């Protein structure tokens, strides 16, 4: 066998652990992006689905939904759609994690002299890129149906930054889900069961004022409502939540940051713990 032998110049072992971590994250993020390039249909949940939802809500339900305090439903809708399109990538994250676990790819990674934190970090970074595409699609389709921004670029950047922070926190929840479930089908189903009520029992599509009294507090404290309200406020769109006098509706931006950091503080360490200990 004519194997070439390795020289020191072929190895990256001389690098520090941070450089190694960044290298591994980059290699694995490229892997996820390459998959999107080969199978663009995997992006449908952040491209086709949000377009469908925007159009259905705008033209089917929109006419029947009254907004307390007045305002255009199409302008109201986009703040809610942003949150939905980002949070619903979490089941996809779970599916990808379950698949890697079940094919043995994660075992291979574990047997390599690579950074252990890199696998999950790369997964969440790739999903953050997917979410950025989703946010752009929602904004694009919003502009097409008459959604407009009435504030400055600083506010708009802040709104999208909050939305992506929120989406990133959900991604870690998706990673945890993928770690504890056994099959991609189970991940898909469980994700649906968790994320659908989370999106709909909120002010994402309808103002909470029309809900029964017992449901209103749940919807008002739902992080999805906080994100929708924060975005509406920052875009200068109709924001009926401002009329409700509870802490998360009155401090929507702070509420989004608290929810996101809180979820990251719980799910990121939990995901890393599960990755380290699962199957050991």
């Amino acid at each position, binding site marked *: 066998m004519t194997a070439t032998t390795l020289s020191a110049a072929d190895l990256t*072992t001389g690098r520090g652990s941070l450089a190694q971590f960044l290298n591994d994250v980059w290699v694995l993020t490229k892997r996820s992006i390459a998959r999107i390039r080969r199978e663009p249909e995997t992006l449908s949940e952040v491209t086709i689905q949000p377009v469908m939802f925007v159009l259905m809500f705008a033209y089917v339900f929109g006419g029947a939904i009254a907004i307390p305090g007045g305002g255009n439903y199409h302008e109201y809708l986009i703040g809610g759609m942003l949150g939905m399109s980002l949070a619903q990538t979490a089941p996809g994250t779970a599916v990808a994690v379950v698949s890697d676990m079940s*094919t043995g790819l994660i075992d291979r990674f574990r*047997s*390599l002299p690579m950074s252990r934190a890199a696998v999950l970090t790369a997964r969440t970074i790739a999903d953050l890129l997917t979410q950025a595409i989703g946010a752009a699609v929602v904004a694009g389709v919003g502009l097409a149906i008459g959604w407009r921004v009435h504030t400055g670029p600083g506010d708009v950047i802040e709104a999208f930054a909050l939305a992506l922070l929120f989406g990133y926190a959900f991604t870690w929840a998706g990673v945890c889900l993928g770690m504890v479930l056994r099959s991609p089908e189970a991940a898909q189903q469980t994700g649906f069961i968790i994320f659908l009520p989370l999106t709909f029992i909120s002010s994402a599509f309808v103002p909470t004022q029309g809900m029964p009294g017992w449901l209103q507090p749940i919807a008002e404290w739902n992080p999805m409502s906080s994100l929708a309200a924060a975005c509406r406020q920052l875009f200068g769109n109709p924001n009926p939540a401002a009329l409700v006098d509870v802490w998360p509706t009155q401090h929507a931006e702070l509420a989004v940051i608290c929810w996101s950091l809180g979820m990251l503080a719980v799910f990121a360490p939990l995901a890393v713990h599960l990755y380290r200990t699962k199957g050991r």
Partner: protein
Amino acid sequence: MGETPAIEAEGLVKHYGKTKALDGLDLTVGQRTVYGLLGPNGAGKTTAVRVLATLLRPDGGRARVDGHDVVAEAVVVRRIIGLTGQYAALDEYLTGRSNLVMVGRLSRLTTRAATRRADELLERFGLADAATRAVKTYSGGMRRRLDLAASLIGHPSVLFLDEPTTGLDPSARALMWDIVRELVADGTTLLLTTQYLDEADQLADRIAVIDGGKVIAEGTPTELKASVGGQRVLLTLAEAGDAAVAVKALRPFAAGSIVPNGSVSDHGARLLEVPVIATDGLATEVLRALDAAGVGVSDIAVRSASLDDVFLTLTGHAAEAADEDDDTAELAEEAAV
């Protein structure tokens, strides 16, 4: 003397709930040798490999690879080893080449070195033509070869192959065997698990037979076969009624522990199989003894003991008998033919 063994395990224990997957496993594998772990499904082979490859933390005992502890020095061990599991651990959506480059980059190779090594391995394993196709279009045999290539990309000095040919058709199996032989010639230490006796016989310098999470016999294939009597005498009696007399007459020749139903078979009560230690003129002496006892013989044959015989004698059950999954059992039998 003096050379650190490539793999050393002392009293490894691993529980899964109440099941003891490993129950005090001891192993010593010399540098640049092929070591076969032979046992039925559920014997603890895969658990042993996962502990040695730093994927599992043992509940008891210790193991070293090239002198490095697999728990305390896991990071060092991972630079030395390569692992090919039972299922092709690859990204289905990437091309074969991208998979190898990815694993190479994660094995601390530079992009240039990883690409060069990937192309070299694709060429050697007959995958150059399929290099730019997504892995999901590959056949089972191609996946296994790519998976093996992935475990070689970082130039491991110790390689773990967990049932590398399970589920492969005979030609794909033969190709894997050739590759394994090349690796050995290259100086790689290889720990191979298998439930196929012929595979261990063909490839391994030494074999440990595992059952119930511990080693129940260890040695070279020749030693193991000799331990159950190096040879078997197969007799066809002229009269079925003579079986009992024949067994009595043959007892002085029988070697080692006899499994009654296995080694002295009673197919139609005319066929007898006797484990013996090979000596000159053995067949003649057997015939004389039977003649003296008044037993007529219509056929006699002498064959070498197979590892099947070893397995049966040591564990009291056939190698594939412990299969829980019928499909796997069928595949195993097909491939073993």
